[in-house]
């Protein structure tokens, strides 16, 4: 009886946890294990594993030019996208953190891209990039520059997609960084002003150090999200031209749902998982040390 009473937290607790446990098991843990399992098999049309292939799927993808190219494109895409979108959002957040009349309006505009879906953004940018009627080429024409084949030229396509993604990410990054700025204690600035510190000194000595946990968080999230980009690729370029924008999730999607190669697609998915895991661990190992907590 005593034990029954003492274990009340366990019993009630497990009951409350049950939905989460079941759902995580069903839609995260089991599929993760199954992905690992499938990555060692060749599968038939229905996705059923038919032939144990050992690590063949892995050696196959790593020796295929297509996948190596996809990894390279993904890495470049992340390098083009993450630093720029965080930096722009940081500048915007610092500007929008000033107490000025009408600042709410600017904050609303700055965060607006967060409310616009990947699909809608990509369609809008598809038009901006349009070779003959798009805004960008119209602007180039107006200043007498030659037109650029934004999405059709393999030299430009990845940059164009990156530009779209930077724009898409700015809203969320801005909102998070602004929240971080507003958590900084007002009195620090006041005493710094009394000590005669100028705008940029305050920025360097107070704002950036105290903002570092937020920046650390947003960089980690951006990295993870950027590795997972799919919608803009599907709508803007379909991985082309000549696979220059065949990012890893798009590659997995094609391998699995166009070519029905669930085995090799799963091996690619495991590589994606490993990369995200490593990036997260490295971030926490090296990033965290440089972070200043209040």
């Amino acid at each position: 009886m005593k034990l029954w009473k003492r274990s009340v937290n366990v019993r009630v607790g497990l009951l409350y946890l049950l939905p989460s446990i079941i759902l995580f098991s069903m839609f995260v843990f089991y599929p993760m294990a199954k992905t690992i399992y499938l990555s060692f098999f060749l599968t038939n049309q229905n996705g059923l594993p038919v032939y144990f292939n050992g690590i063949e799927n892995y050696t196959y993808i790593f020796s295929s030019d297509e996948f190596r190219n996809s990894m390279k494109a993904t890495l470049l895409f992340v390098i083009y996208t993450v630093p720029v979108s965080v930096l722009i959002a940081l500048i915007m957040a610092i500007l929008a953190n000033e107490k000025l009349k009408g600042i709410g309006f600017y904050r609303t505009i700055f965060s607006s891209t967060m409310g616009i879906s990947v699909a809608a953004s990509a369609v809008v940018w598809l038009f901006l990039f349009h070779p003959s009627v798009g805004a960008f080429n119209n602007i180039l024409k107006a200043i007498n520059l030659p037109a650029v084949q934004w999405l059709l030229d393999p030299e430009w396509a990845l940059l164009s997609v990156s530009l779209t993604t930077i724009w898409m990410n700015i809203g969320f990054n801005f909102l998070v960084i602004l929240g971080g700025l507003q958590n900084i204690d007002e009195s620090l600035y006041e005493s710094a002003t009394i000590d005669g510190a100028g705008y940029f000194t305050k920025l360097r000595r107070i704002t950036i150090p105290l903002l570092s946990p937020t920046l650390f968080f947003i960089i980690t999230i951006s990295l993870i999200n950027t590795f997972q980009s799919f919608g803009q690729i599907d709508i803007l370029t379909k991985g082309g031209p000549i696979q220059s924008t065949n990012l890893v999730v798009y590659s997995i999607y094609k391998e699995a749902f166009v070519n029905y190669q669930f085995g090799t697609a799963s091996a690619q998915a495991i590589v994606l998982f490993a990369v995200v895991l490593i990036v997260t661990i490295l971030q926490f190992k090296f990033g965290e040390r440089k972070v200043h907590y209040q």
Partner: protein
Amino acid sequence: MKMPLSQKVLFYILLTIFAVLVFFPVAYAFLISFMTPQEVLMGNILPRSFSFGNYEQAFERLPLLRYLLNSFVVSTIVMAGQVLVCAMAAYVFVFLPFRGSNLIFFLFISTMMIPWEATMIPNFLLVQGFGWTNTYMALTLPFFASAFGTFLLRQHFLTIPYELYEAAQIGGVGKLKFFWKVVLPMSKTSVITLGAYSFLTTWNMYLWPLLTTTNDTVRTVQIGIRQLQSNESATDWGVVMAGVMIIILPTLILLFLGQKQLQKGLTQGAIK
């Protein structure tokens, strides 16, 4: 502390430049949505008239109303389901801890490191095996449990004094009642943040609905806009942009209403 006028002007100029850069694509799409194909072809910036012909066309060429309804239903279900499931889990971690509950908490948090795309193939096979293709079930149930949501709510529940829970226990208030009548109302900010966030992300979801819907019954607006674009863009960008305007309106309104709330809530969850 008063800012000198010159500095103020400089700030406004910079703010306005950024505002123009950020908002230009949407504003431009808005203008295009009122143009005929000829006007688009001529590279006009302002439409000749603000008539809603393209919007009517968008509704005619696609079952857009159906898609909007689907997106609304799916997003609302995920919002409600996620808040409830996450709140229940967070409640245990804060108020009913038991030996091993920490371990479960870390297990939940570890799912944040598993990208959804890495598990989508078995998930797709699973959902297909259940016969859930083209059902709301496939689009909603997998997203009820969320590590981010559980974490966010746990952070907020931690700020509720534990003495309150003890007092309620002594006073004979049940655990469920305490959860429902005290914890949830006291965490209104975080609950609203999570709700708005999950509604927004579900509304904007793209890859999963693409995989699990093959006809119009539960298809969402995001897939609709893809269809509209691939059917019409060669001929009629005005109609495509009208479609874009229609599907971004609900989330933009939600964002504008909840911007302050979201900003506060998201950073709270992120930093502490």
